[in-house]
Every structure is written in C-alpha cells, then in structure tokens.
C-alpha cells in the first residue's frame, strides 16, 4: 500500500504508457486475440494432421450418400434409400416437434402447479409443493427412464385389447393410436375457411378493444371468435360436401400373430418413445416453471389484489386481468431460459430410442466415422434453435414490458 501511495503522489498523471489504461487495454486485447488465434490454429492444424495421418475422410460429401437405416418416426418422406442428409433433417424435425409440444405442455402444467402452490387450499398447495420438490431434484435422465420403462410395462401389449378413450383414441405398448384426417379434393376450402375465421376473429378483437377503449362499450369477443373459428370451417365443410374423412386405426384380432394388433400406417400413431420423452421433459421443466410462476405472482404486490377486490372484481378475473399480466414481466426472462433448457434437454432422447437429431446423428457418425462434421451439425442446429427461441421470447418480452403512458 505504502509503495502505491508513493507512486500516486510521486509521479505526474501522464507518466508512462504502461499506466495508460487505453494502451494497456489495447495490449491485453492484442495478447488475447493472439492467444485465441494461436489456439484455434493449433486445433485446426492438429486435426488436419491427425485426419491425414489416419486416413480419415473429411468433408460434407457423406450427406448425399444413401443412409440405409430405418427411422421409426418421420414427418417428411423418408425411407432407407434416402441420404444421410435427409436422415439428419428427419432428426432436426423430430427434435423441433418434441421441443415445441414439450414447451406448450410444460407451460400449461407449470402455470397450473405454480398457481396451485399459492392456493389457499392446504392439500392442493402441499401437493404442488411435493411435486415441485420431488421432480426437480431428480435427474431428468432418470425420469426419462422411469416414464419409458415403468410406463411401458404398465400398458397393454401390442396384441392385447388396448386401453380406449371414447373408442376413438387407443393406448398400448405401440403408443397412442388416433384417427388420421384424410384430405380429399375440396378440403383446401375448409382449411382456407379456418384461416379466414382466425384472421377475422383477430380483427374483430382489435376493433372491439379499440371501441372499448374509446367508448367503454364491451363486445362479446369470445363468442364471436368462437363462432368464426369453429363455424366458418364447419359451414365450408358441409357446403363442399364433407371432403375430410377420418381414417381410424385398425385393430386386427386374427390371422398371423405378428400381423395382429394395430396395423402400421393406418391412422395416426404416436410412438411411446415420443410420449415418454414428452412427459419426462414437460413434467421436469414444469416443476421449474411452477417456481418461476410462483415467484412472479408473489412479486406482484398484494395491494394489487386488494385493489382489484375492492373494485368488485372476482377472484378469477383478478388473477387473469390484474395479477398475471403484471407477473408476466417478472416471469418471462427466466421462462425463456427454461424453454431453452427444455430444447437442449430433448437431446436426451438418445437414451430411449426417440430418433431426434442427436440419436440419428449418432447413427450417421457411426456409419461414416465423420465425428467432427456430425458434432458440428449438432452444435450448429442447437445453437440456431436456442437463438431462435431467445429471439422470439425477447420479442414477446418487449411486447409485455411496462408501457408507460
């Protein structure tokens, strides 16, 4: 200390370049850049040398080679004769599907549990507490195994009488079987009617909002929208002569044993790997979301609730119109990171044979031995997904942010 004081006192303010913060900053940055470039060059150099020395082929040519393996779930056309690139695309889509549905489901469960956690009802709030504390303190991978292997053993076998929901949706070890809509000619009009209904409903809502702001008169937006969104397509459906039919899953109970049970390719089949992964991901993430929601609601001062009650607003609308909109501002940023976590955690699919990007990519990696390229693709896709989710949530956050008049 003493030495330093002397320094300060003894020397004029602009003594040497060494103590000029600008020069020093520049120096540090140059050193840092040099180090990063050196490290990067070293890695690239080593890799090239290693690849050459070991006769490992490199480059992205393998993407057009025939894959030759089957994939159990695919939303785009895929067969064994398709290319590795196509197989990876199937993986990307499967990742997006499970992440997207998972986010929606996790949000719903999370909000319900979060609100339940604050319930005045002792049983409900303790139940929510138990749910949160149990689920979020157990590794996700373990939960995926639980849902997959424990649930698998609990449902009927592929050839036994399946569990039935209203005789339309069935559940057995082959997954969930539901009717599949078949679109015949003319069905595009129905779809167009649906879209038109949604658009008109949206316009009506904006108009009604404006009018309410201006005149205070309310308009039954909900019922109008309901009529538009449901009614328009139904009318179009009837007018065009019912062009959409449902293909029900077919359960065969005789013939060769392997041909019994639900027939592959008839109806919609949701594979159990998807169900297990979806449940595990959303139940796990929901426990975090619930805590975020609870904290968010508690962050809204109690005076808001009291004021709303004093205005004669009932409990439900208070929550919906007063508390939640304010809580959302606190909730959204941590919610975003939970969505990102869920997307990234969907890569654990590899443990239970759901063909997501990592799982399919792993197979490609093994067949081609091109580790660097495949891992590069993985990271690139997940980075893009993360950035896209962040961007969307930032946009939403800005919309929800406090607008001061």
């Amino acid at each position: 200390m003493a030495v330093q004081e002397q320094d300060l006192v003894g020397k004029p303010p602009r003594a040497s370049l060494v103590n000029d913060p600008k020069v020093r900053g520049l120096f540090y940055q140059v050193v840092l850049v040099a180090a990063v470039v050196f490290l990067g060059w070293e890695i690239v150099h080593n890799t090239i040398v290693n690849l050459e020395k070991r006769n490992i082929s490199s480059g992205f040519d393998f993407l057009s080679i025939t894959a030759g393996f089957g994939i159990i779930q695919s939303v785009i056309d895929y067969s064994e004769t398709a290319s590795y690139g196509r197989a990876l695309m199937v993986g990307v889509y499967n990742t997006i599907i499970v992440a997207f549905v998972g986010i929606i489901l996790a949000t719903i469960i999370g909000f319900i549990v979060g609100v339940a956690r604050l319930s005045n009802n002792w049983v409900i709030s303790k139940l929510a507490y138990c749910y949160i504390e149990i689920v979020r303190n157990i590794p996700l991978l373990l939960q995926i195994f639980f849902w997959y292997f424990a649930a698998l053993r609990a449902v009927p076998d592929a050839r036994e009488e399946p569990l039935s929901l209203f005789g339309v949706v069935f559940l057995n070890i082959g997954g969930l079987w539901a009717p599949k809509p078949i679109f015949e000619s003319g069905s595009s009009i129905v779809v167009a009617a649906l879209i038109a209904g949604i658009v008109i409903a949206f316009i009506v809502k904006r108009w009604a909002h404006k009018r309410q702001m201006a005149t205070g008169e309310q308009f039954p937006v909900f019922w109008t929208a309901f009529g538009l969104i449901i009614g328009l397509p139904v009318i179009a459906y009837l007018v065009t002569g019912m062009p959409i039919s449902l293909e029900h899953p077919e359960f065969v109970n005789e013939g060769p044993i392997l041909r019994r049970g639900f027939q592959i390719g008839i109806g919609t089949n949701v594979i159990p790997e998807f169900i297990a992964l979806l449940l595990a991901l959303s139940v796990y993430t929901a426990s975090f979301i619930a805590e975020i929601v609870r904290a968010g609601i508690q962050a809204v001062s109690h005076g808001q609730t009291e004021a709303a009650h004093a205005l004669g607003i009932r409990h439900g609308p208070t929550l919906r119109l007063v508390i939640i909109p304010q809580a959302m501002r606190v909730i959204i940023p941590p919610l975003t990171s939970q969505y990102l976590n869920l997307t990234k955690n969907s890569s654990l699919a590899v443990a239970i044979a759901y063909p997501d990007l990592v799982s399919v990519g792993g197979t490609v990696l093994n067949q081609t031995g091109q580790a660097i390229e495949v891992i590069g693709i993985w990271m690139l896709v997940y980075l893009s997904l993360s950035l896209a989710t962040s961007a969307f949530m930032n946009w939403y956050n800005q919309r929800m942010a406090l607008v001061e008049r």
Partner: protein
Amino acid sequence: MKTKILPILLGAAMGVAATTGANAAKLDDVKAKGFVQCGVSQGLPGFSNPDSDGNWSGIDVDYCRALAAAIFDDPQAVKFTPLSAKERFTALQSGEVDVLSRNTTWTATRDTGLGLNFAGVNYYDGQGFMVRKSLGVTSALELSGARVCTNTGTTTELNVADYFRANNMPYEIVAFEKADEVVQAYDAKRCDVYTTDASGLYAQRLKLTNPGEHMVLPEIISKEPLGPVVQQGDDQWFNIAKWTLFAMVNAEELGVTSANVEEMKGSDNPSIKRLLGTEGAYGEDMGLSNDWVVRIVKHVGNYGETFDRNVGPDTPLGISRGLNALWSNGGIQYAPPVR
C-alpha cells in the same frame, strides 16, 4: 483475461496426458510402459464383461491377454478401456488404446476409410433374430409386420433394413444407444424381435427375465466377422496382432493346450517345433522372443480353450463351435502355417 485459462488447461493436460510416442514403434512404446492398453466393450458376456470386482473376462479379453503374454510373459500386463460403439474407432485412431478387441465387424469402410487394420477374425458371427416362443414364429421370413429392437451405430441396423426390404416385409425399427436398454425394451414387449449378432443374442438372453421363453431363429442374415483391430501404419505391431491370433488357432490345430504345452516342447513334430520356437526364429523376426507361442498357450490357452471357457456349450451362453470350428473339423477357422 481468458489467456489465463489456457496455461491452466494446458498445464492440466500435460499433467494427466500420456504420451504415446510416434506411430512407427508401437511395440517399443508398449514395452516401455509395461502393459497393453486394450479397448473392450462396456459389458458383453462371453466377449468382454467385467465381474462385480472389475475383473474382465471373455473371448476378446483373452485375445488381449494373449497379446500381453506374448510380449511380457504376463497375461495380467494389460489394461482395459471400456468403449462405446461410437468411441471405439477414435480411441484407436488417437492411440488411446493399442489394440481394439471389441466384437468389431470387419467391413470395407472400416478397413479402408478409417485408417484401421483388422488383424483377423476371432469369431465368425452373423446377425440373427430372437423372438418370444409364444409368437409361434419359426423362421425370419414370417417376421412381416414385426417391431424390431436393436442398437444404433452398428452394422445390424443396416442389415435389418436390407433384409426386410429384400424380402418385401414391412417392419418398424426401434434403435437404442446401449445394449442394456434394448434388452429392457424387448423384455417390456416394446418389440417382437431383438436383432443383433447371434452371439450377442445368446449373451443378452441371459439378462431377460425369463430366458427360457425366448428363442433364436435359425436364419443368419449377414456376415459378421469379428476381430481385433490396430492402427494403420505400424506393420510390426500389425504382424504381432495378426500372429497372436494365428498362433492360438495353430496351437489348437496341433493339439497344444495350456495343460500339455511344456511337454509338447519336446515333441518331434516339426510343425509343433516351429510353433513353439524350439526350431527357427519366428518370434524374433517380429520383435518378440522365440517362445512367444509357449507364453500365449501357457497363460491363456489355445483358441479352442478360450472359446470353450467363455462362450462354449458348457458356459451359460452355450454356443456351439459351428463356423468357428477349425477348418479340419468342418468350420472355417484357418490360420496360415508358421514356417
């Protein structure tokens, strides 16, 4: 600021990193460090499987022990690295393991595109199917419409696709990362069929809740020659790897066993003399001692002994010799002569 990370990382790296030296003299490296580093599976009964105390056993493990015996006269001078299907080739390419003895199928891509050399075949395998007896299926051709469980990242996934397509049968494939998970899913009836190398089927059947309820179908749909692998570019090491395997097969053919190897040294049969190094200098040509085969057989046994001990009819796996019998007994195990 980040510059400070690098020295830390590199320092740590140097601390734990093992330097394995250049490609050209693997044997010298191995001799210098005093043991063979052998890549094995993460647990496949009969081939390479650790017991509860961590002792490895199996036909692939015995090959590694034979290699160690030939070099050091000590079958324990070997360390095992369990590798997943994905890691195995990189581990070998990077020199992390000296030899990969992990039920690895010899294919053209692997031999030519990955910078590897296959040292031979220590088990002729083929892909088979296991089903529940209750299905009443007796042939793989009746598997139309079946749900098939298998591992990802192996040739089995491709073979099964080829087979079902060639026979115009619809199927669904459920591919898992690890064998344990395949077994669990098959046991939970997620699939009708479990397919992998036939030897693997016998091994995994032991892990099922009721092994007696399952049967392996007669069809073998692919050729799966399994064998040890080494890195390309070191001919001496490649020779040692090859001839360790050949020596074990030759020993069986000439009737040299771990029990009688000492007295066989006095045999008048010139083939045995050459094999056991009492005549010629075949071991020294490879950089080993001349009694290298004696060491192998004394400590590990000949090929037939390791087969019987690990996978043979008297073991829980109960696999008959079949293709893996000597050529003189109707099989295709055939080793070039020592001469």
